[in-house]
């Protein structure tokens, strides 16, 4: 063999040898065999970043450490999903034993990939029935195909905020209960100014902060998937109804272009200049956190809170809403899963801990007992969100094998439909359903 050929062969063999060792990262450990009563330190990663939230997490952990003096918790805050994903893959002593994330859509990915351990055996061992502990929607979005790899850590419920002062001026006496009432009220509340608005009744566009397709659809109770796991967006009338309702609102309130131009003038979602605070929009679809933020901004009007409207043919279900929230789970790479479980159990099922945390950060409690707890302190208007969370008709978007990809597909169709790029909704929904099925097949 000539020298050059030998060198080439050597290089190739080296590469192949390297390749065969390439896929040995982030392998899961199986089972938990650590002693939770021994002295240990675990890592807890969360995504909260506001000073009051960070303080609340510290207080929650202090309560846990008091109850479990042998388990110390190293808390790391302000963690994005991307960082958490990477740490879950890599593992190691600095990676989280317990993680929490705001993205419930990722549950399917976490469960199916084995990034987080199935908590069912832990719940069984602790004699806790999740179905009797958590509200229906929260119990649903924390598991995927029987694998409960997460538990709810407080929740978010979506409702309607409205400017009571603007309502009075427009002669509206009560918040709308159906979408047709809502449309009429939104038009009454809209005050034009030149080619724009002095006050817009409602910003219906899908880019209007929380007015996403999934949040609208929560009011229509769609199924999303059939028993075989195939997308039902093309066949479920609830989906088409949600799309047409939103499109009608867009058209009735001035059309997509005019609304988008107005939207570009509005303040951002998390700042004090949010258009609801400033009176630029009179009604707002939003989560329970908006109440505290709006009150802090000291708007010059009285804030009203109500459940979001329901379709006219579902009037008897008024009071339901879309539910999502924060999830927490145990990393498969953790060597301290029993100790980690003690923390997860405490922060997700201990009524006093859940109530205390909810009081501190004004999120919806995520256990049925905490929702009824007399220790829960809240503005009377916050009760609306507690009721939405406890409502059995409230909905969520189910976990999927590839996370929230199906929701993005629906959302993209929404962008095309509201802007008029897609005119044939039925064809659009059929294509979206095919895309969702293809994406899921790709993830298998």
């Amino acid at each position: 063999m000539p020298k050059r050929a030998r060198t080439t062969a050597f290089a190739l063999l080296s590469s192949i040898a390297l390749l065969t060792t390439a896929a040995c990262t982030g392998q899961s450990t199986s089972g938990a065999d650590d002693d939770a009563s021994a002295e240990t330190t675990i890592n807890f990663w969360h995504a909260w970043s506001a000073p009051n939230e960070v303080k609340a997490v510290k207080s929650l952990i202090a309560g846990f450490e008091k109850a479990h003096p042998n388990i110390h918790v190293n808390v790391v805050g302000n963690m994005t999903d991307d960082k958490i994903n990477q740490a879950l893959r890599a593992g190691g002593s600095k990676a989280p034993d317990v993680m929490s994330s705001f993205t419930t859509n990722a549950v399917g990915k976490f469960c199916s990939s084995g990034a987080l351990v199935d908590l069912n055996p832990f719940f069984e061992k602790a004699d806790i029935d999740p179905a009797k502990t958590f509200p229906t929607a929260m119990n649903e979005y924390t598991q995927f195909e029987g694998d409960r790899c997460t538990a709810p850590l407080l929740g978010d419920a979506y409702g309607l905020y409205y400017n009571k002062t603007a309502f009075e001026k427009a002669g509206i006496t009560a918040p709308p209960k159906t979408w047709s009432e809502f449309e009429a009220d939104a038009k009454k509340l809209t005050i034009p100014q030149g080619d724009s608005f002095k006050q817009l009744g409602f910003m219906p566009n899908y880019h209007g902060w929380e007015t996403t397709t999934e949040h609208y659809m929560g009011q229509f109770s769609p199924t999303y998937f059939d028993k075989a796991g195939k997308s039902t967006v093309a066949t479920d009338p609830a989906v088409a109804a949600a799309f047409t309702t939103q499109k009608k609102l867009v058209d009735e309130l001035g059309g997509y272009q005019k609304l988008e131009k107005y939207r570009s003038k509005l303040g951002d979602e998390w700042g004090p200049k949010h258009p609801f605070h400033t009176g630029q929009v009179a009604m707002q679809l939003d989560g329970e956190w908006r109440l505290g933020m709006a009150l802090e901004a000291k708007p010059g009007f009285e804030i009203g809170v109500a459940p979001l409207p329901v379709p006219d043919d579902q009037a008897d279900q008024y009071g339901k809403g879309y539910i999502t929230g924060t999830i927490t789970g145990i990393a498969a790479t953790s060597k301290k899963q029993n100790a980690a479980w003690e923390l997860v159990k405490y922060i997700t099922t201990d009524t006093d801990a859940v109530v205390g945390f909810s009081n501190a950060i004004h999120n919806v409690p995520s256990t049925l007992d905490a929702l009824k707890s007399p220790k829960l302190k809240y503005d009377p208007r916050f009760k609306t969100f507690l009721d939405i969370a406890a409502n059995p008709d409230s909905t969520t978007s189910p976990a999927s094998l590839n996370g929230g990809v199906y929701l993005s597909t629906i959302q993209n169709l929404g962008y095309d439909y509201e802007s008029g790029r897609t005119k044939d909704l039925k064809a659009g929904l059929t294509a979206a359903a095919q895309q969702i099925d293809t994406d899921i097949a790709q993830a298998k």
Partner: protein
Amino acid sequence: MSTVTLASKRRRAALRTAAFMSPWLIGFTVFFAYPMISTLYFSFMHYDGFKPPTWSGTKNWTYVFESYPYFWPALRNTLWLVVITVTLRVLFGLGIGLLITKIKTGAGVFRTLFYLPYLAPPVAATMAFAFLFNPGTGPVNSILEKVGIPAPGWFNDPSWSKPALTLLFLWGVGDLMVIFMAALLDVPKEQYEAAELDGASAWQRFRYVTIPNISPIIMFAVVTGVIAAMQCYTQPLVAGKVASGVIQGAGTLFEPGYPEKSTLTLPQLIYNLGFQRFDYGSACVVALVLFALSMAFTAFLMRRRGGLIQAGD
């Protein structure tokens, strides 16, 4: 005996050469060859980063080319940025360089003014641009409306988002300006004098004296520009995010490309597929496409350089 000595001498020489080359060889192997082969390997595997990879044949390739709805828009956008933005950046950088070399007074001030934007971090620069070009509240549209010019939607309008990005890249043209200035000041004066004596006009002097002299620098600017445009990630992503008003919050998954996939680029897809969808196989396919495109563009430009770079350059 002498043969053995000669052979051992040669072996020693080869070893010495290898030893001197080893820093580069190790770097090349670890940071290029191995990742490259790994990328190719994973493009035929189903791999989510957690479970061991499994063979999936050409499934990832088929998915990316036939079913992944973002691939073709991202490819078109990337090519648009390569062709339009790189051309304009080179022309603009050369133009500014020429102007400043011709200025007698205040050249230093202009040089600083044009170079400063290049130093702005990409995220901050893009956010500032999104603010300036905000169709509702931005000063750019206010001025345009005042002078009676119809104001575009910029980052909120799919037909204007890429031109807006191009303006952002032109604003940060300071790096090319400096390189071109150095090249222009290096052109021998006697060649201009000779051309002038022969009665050459300003355009002819530029065409037949300046361009041939600075052609290697033009080639450098084009090749590095193409590679940078291929790898464009931050600015379109930030611009799309700011303009869309979507901030990743509870339960929302931001997909890049606002408005209407017009700011999607191939590197964004690699990130989206790999780190957000846990689909490393498809991410590797897109990475390979990006690599192949970069290689093709560079090879094409290098072949064309015969017409651009003179013998002896």
